[in-house]
């Protein structure tokens, strides 16, 4: 379990006197993740599941109707994410292929594979969920230019939430606008908002873990 100093997190929040969302701790964490993960934009979200919903709405086109995955990537949360977002959820078998206009491909990367190991699916609309081994996470595991985006990473600490990594300015801003009004840099129209807000306490626990357990500054 990723450990952090809860007393310090509380003290930091009170010292900042910033209690709502996307305050100094969340901004510092987004900047840290951008630098260490090699992405232009890190968009924090309250949980992994909310990250999936935010990403699906940010990626949404009128043609999208299916959320598809390969059998090895099955996850029990997908049927719920599909129900919330209005997409039907399908497992692909060996004879199926991803339909470019209608499908969003859900993929997972487990801890033993760095992000740059994923090379399939160029040109397809993809949502990649990465579960890094935080105890050995290194800055060089950042996303490369050609990597499908967004990548959704579950953050360490139990309620540390998740982060969406983007290189596209446009997609990142859409995700911020779907998340909530806090942290928005420019208002852009989105299909629906979802309140994926991220708290200062969540940011504080992750920052404390990254600094003290991984030595990230």
């Amino acid at each position, binding site marked *: 379990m990723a450990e952090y100093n809860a007393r310090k997190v*509380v003290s930091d929040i009170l010292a900042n006197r910033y209690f709502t969302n996307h305050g100094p701790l969340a901004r510092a964490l987004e900047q840290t993740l951008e630098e260490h993960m090699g992405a232009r934009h890190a968009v924090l979200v309250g949980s992994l599941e909310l990250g999936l919903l935010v990403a699906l709405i940010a990626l949404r086109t009128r043609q999208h109707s299916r959320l598809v995955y390969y059998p090895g990537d099955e996850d029990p949360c997908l049927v719920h994410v599909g129900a919330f977002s209005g997409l039907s959820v399908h497992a692909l078998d060996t004879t199926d292929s991803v339909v470019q206009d209608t499908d969003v491909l859900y993929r997972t990367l487990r801890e033993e594979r760095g992000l740059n190991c994923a090379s399939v699916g160029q040109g397809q609309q993809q949502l990649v969920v990465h579960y890094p081994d935080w105890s050995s996470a290194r800055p060089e595991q950042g996303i490369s230019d050609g990597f499908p985006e967004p990548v959704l990473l579950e953050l360490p600490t139990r309620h540390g939430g998740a982060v969406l990594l983007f290189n596209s300015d446009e997609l990142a801003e859409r995700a911020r606008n779907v998340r909530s009004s806090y942290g928005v840099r420019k208002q852009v129209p989105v299909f629906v908002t979802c309140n994926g807000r991220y708290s200062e306490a969540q940011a504080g626990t992750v920052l404390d873990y990254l600094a003290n357990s991984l030595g990230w500054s």
Partner: protein
Amino acid sequence: MSSTGFLSTSNLYEPEKERILRYIDQWLENGGESRPGWLVSLLEKRLCEYHQAEHCVAMSTGFWSLVASLRLSALDAPEVIIPSFTYRRLADVVFWAGKVPRFVDIDESTLAISPESVERAIGSNTAAILAVHPIVNCCDVSRLTEIAAKYAVPMVIDAVESVHETWQGKRVGSFDVPEVFSLHASKLINGLEGGYVCVNDSAYAGRLRDFRSRDSSNARRLKPGHWLASDMPDIHAAFALAGLDEIEENVRHNRKIYRAYQRELKGVGGIRLVAFDEAQQTSFKNIVVEVPGVSGEERDRIVRNLNQAGVLARAHYSPPLHIKSHEYPVLCPEPLPATERAARALLNLPCGFRVSEADVTHVVAMIKSLLSDVPGSCDG
């Protein structure tokens, strides 16, 4: 002026540091993260007592508490009846609940969802009523409950701004329908972020707990759309518990600010302060004023000028939801004249823990000065 340089409409109550840390220490002594939810359970128990409710289920946000409550309550029909004059994201809540919002009008005297409008809107397409307490006082819970029972339609109450209130002497949170509250820092109890549902039905409370659970076995067995990991962090619960301990001090401060507005606004441009019903228990938190004889455009100009000076006043629930464009389907078959009049005339003024009586004097002086430039206003 507040130390941040801004005067906002958020409550931003700051519980005593040592009190928060005492809760954190209790949690750590009881296992900390190896016993997640220990402080959350304590908070739920305290909130049950506070609201006189049988069950309280804490969740990650008020927004997702509303979505969960609607998902678990609604009938197999397409529409959810909601007021248009309300929180700007409420139609989005209905979208995530898998339903279509059907907007209805308010009662002009209370600014709350109109029971008559609700009754006119009910039909075979109605899946639920999402009643909302306005930010000052309550909606007509008795009449709405009667209507919901008469037509056998479930009702959920959005009570995010009504944590401390009573309706006809009965605590909000004890009405035996799902009542949803927020612990966002802008609300009366500052849990940084979070929400909770009070309910008396133990089976329903169990379904809410399943909905929020991180347990993937729940995700596998529950109906699609009846699960989304949305439990509350214990640090948020520590803030909320400390805030709950200090709620009387919080309300005392808000009452002082409300009284200051009452004094300062007397005779200013005919401005009407929306009054709290002091026959009931109330939080005195939100300050809403009506500026008569001023167009919506002039009202918006006043807001812009106040904002430029660091006074983060807001046009109250403007534009209303039925006027906004939505990418997903919404319904508004009837005109909503009371909503449209209210949306042109009302302002939220700064309130909460960081506002002082001197700030109120400053804000009212600014409004008076701005009104003197408005032809047709009582001061212009």
